[in-house]
């Protein structure tokens, strides 16, 4: 095992990784921007290095500064958390070049799976079902029109380099296609420096179901069940749960095995997630692979009793998985709600600022992951995630009741700071969510000023 782990991240995930490092007896080195000078992980860490000013591109995304911090702290491993440099093959490569262990998959795997086009090809080869569409990027408007006509409208045009809900566009009408194709290419170019796009069928009412996988460096892989992440605003998840409600047992196992097969075939090592869309006929389609620990990993930890960050570190240290698929049994139900400092009434705009008061939920079967403290601030420089509130219960109705109780305990005060707490409560209350039959259109139903007639 390592001696010192540098955590190349901030906020709740930096603290969460630090906690597991501490439990494993590893020295914790934190990095921070000037904006995060007084942050919780800086206080928690054994050592902390200032790596740059607030804007992430000059600090958390600035590779030379991170690598220098690793050198100065004598780190022998770097945990990238999620976001920032976590899925940058360059970063993983730089670690390798410096003799540091990158806690994540090998650079070549990140490269292949981060590109949606090669990822789709790899997963198709491994026998995973794909939505009708193109595997290779589509080179011109004419070709796109032909593909779209073949697979049928609506279609979705996606940037090969996209992710996190950015760089994609649904096209419902053939007449709009040429213009929207040009737009998404231009957006993709400016966002990712890569204007390649592909096309696939768009499922307006699908569920977003993902499978958590662990692969060690000895060729072993296991899955830890599903997470349903269908409650999304602007394609950003806000409520996640495990298991996925209402899926037939056979489907669950089929998807789990497919995910493990796909990642092992791709040479994956570490914790990874395979995202699928599941349609109303319970057919599933590969969507993408996330080569990192995910924001919503706690729900899997709660149902499976596994510390996923510990497994990441063990795998990165070359150890074998110490649990078999048969031993990995889920118990009960877990739900996560992401508390964002944002205003749902004003299009979910972030509301950063000073937190003059903060009361977090606690008690039986409630877990809160946050780096926020009363007297601290939610910085405008980063994403507005304030806390992740997770609950566990023996079944889904009890878990929902517990989450309602937990959310009611939350109190956030600060000038100009609001949260999506009440919006989350509304979503939890929606008959479709309560029935577990909701899909990715749920938030639109809640925010649409003209609610549809259909149930």
């Amino acid at each position, binding site marked *: 095992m390592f001696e010192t782990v540098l955590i190349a991240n901030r906020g709740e995930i930096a603290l969460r990784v630090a906690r597991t490092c501490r439990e494993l007896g590893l*020295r914790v080195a934190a990095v921070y921007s*000037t904006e995060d*000078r*007084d942050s919780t992980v800086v206080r928690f*860490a*054994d*050592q902390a*290095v*200032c*790596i*740059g*000013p607030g804007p992430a591109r000059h*600090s958390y995304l600035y*590779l*030379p*500064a991170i*690598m*220098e*911090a690793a050198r*100065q702290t004598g780190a022998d491993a770097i945990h990238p958390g999620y976001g920032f440099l976590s899925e940058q093959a360059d970063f993983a490569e*730089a670690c390798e070049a410096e003799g540091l262990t990158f806690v994540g998959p090998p650079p070549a795997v990140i490269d292949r799976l981060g590109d949606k086009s090669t990822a789709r090809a790899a997963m198709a080869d491994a026998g995973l079902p794909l939505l009708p569409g193109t595997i290779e990027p589509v080179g011109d408007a004419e070709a796109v029109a032909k593909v779209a006509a073949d697979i049928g409208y609506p279609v979705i045009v996606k940037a090969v380099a996209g992710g996190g809900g950015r760089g994609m566009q649904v096209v419902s009408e053939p007449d709009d296609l040429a213009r929207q194709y040009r737009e998404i290419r231009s957006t993709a170019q400016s966002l990712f420096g890569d204007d390649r796009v592909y096309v696939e069928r768009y499922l307006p009412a699908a569920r977003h179901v993902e499978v958590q996988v662990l692969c060690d460096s000895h060729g072993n892989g296991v899955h830890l069940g599903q997470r349903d992440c269908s409650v999304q605003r602007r394609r950003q998840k806000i409520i996640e749960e495990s298991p996925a409600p209402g899926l037939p047992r056979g489907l669950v196992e089929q998807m789990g095995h497919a995910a493990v097969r796909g990642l092992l075939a791709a040479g994956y090592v570490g914790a990874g997630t395979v995202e699928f869309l599941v349609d109303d006929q319970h057919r599933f389609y590969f969507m993408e692979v996330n080569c990192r620990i995910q924001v919503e990993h706690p729900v899997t930890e709660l149902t499976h009793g596994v510390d996923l960050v510990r497994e990441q570190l063990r795998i990165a240290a070359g150890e074998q998985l110490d649990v078999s698929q048969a031993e990995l049994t889920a118990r009960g139900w877990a739900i996560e709600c992401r508390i964002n400092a944002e205003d749902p009434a004003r299009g979910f705009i972030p509301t950063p600022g000073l937190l003059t008061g903060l009361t977090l939920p606690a008690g039986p079967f409630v877990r809160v992951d946050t780096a926020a403290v009363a*007297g601290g601030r939610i910085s405008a420089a980063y994403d507005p995630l304030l806390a992740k509130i997770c609950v566990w219960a023996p079944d889904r109705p009890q878990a929902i009741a517990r989450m309602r109780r937990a959310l009611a305990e939350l109190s956030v005060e600060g000038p100009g700071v609001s949260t999506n707490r009440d919006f989350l409560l509304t979503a939890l209350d929606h008959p479709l969510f309560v029935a577990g039959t909701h899909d990715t259109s749920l938030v639109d139903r809640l925010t649409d000023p003209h609610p549809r007639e259909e149930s």
Partner: protein
Amino acid sequence: MTSLIEPAQTEGAAPLAEALDEVRRSAQSLLADLAHRPRALRIRAGDVVVEMEWTEQQQAPAATPAPAPAPEAPDTPPAPPPGVGISSPIVGTFYRAAEPGGTPFVSEGDQVRRGQQVGIVEAMKLMIPVEADADGRILAVHTADGAPVEFGERLMTIDPQAG
């Protein structure tokens, strides 16, 4: 800072910087919890002394009881000597000369012009020049040749009056 409870790991690091850090943090904590900022504050710990004074005008706004963070220049280390600081542009290794054993770019007492190179910080083979922020005289060089520096760490202090 937990680093202090593991004496084994402090070996190479400058204990003075650490002590300064502790004193500064102690002062900040103390001030943050005060409803009214004092006219003067002095903290001394062994070799380390922190003294602070506020002018009349600064005291008035201080009367707002909100949790006031560090009084001024929160991004620079505490109680810097008077003058203008030159901060590290990046985390890395500080060099006073262009090559090992070479003549330092500047020494204490030297006159410098704004924009003049006074040092180098190396980060991952990138050699980033450190330049004077103002015309003046080098009052102090705070960082030894070859020492690790963080972003924003004060490397030198210039007296601009002396320019």
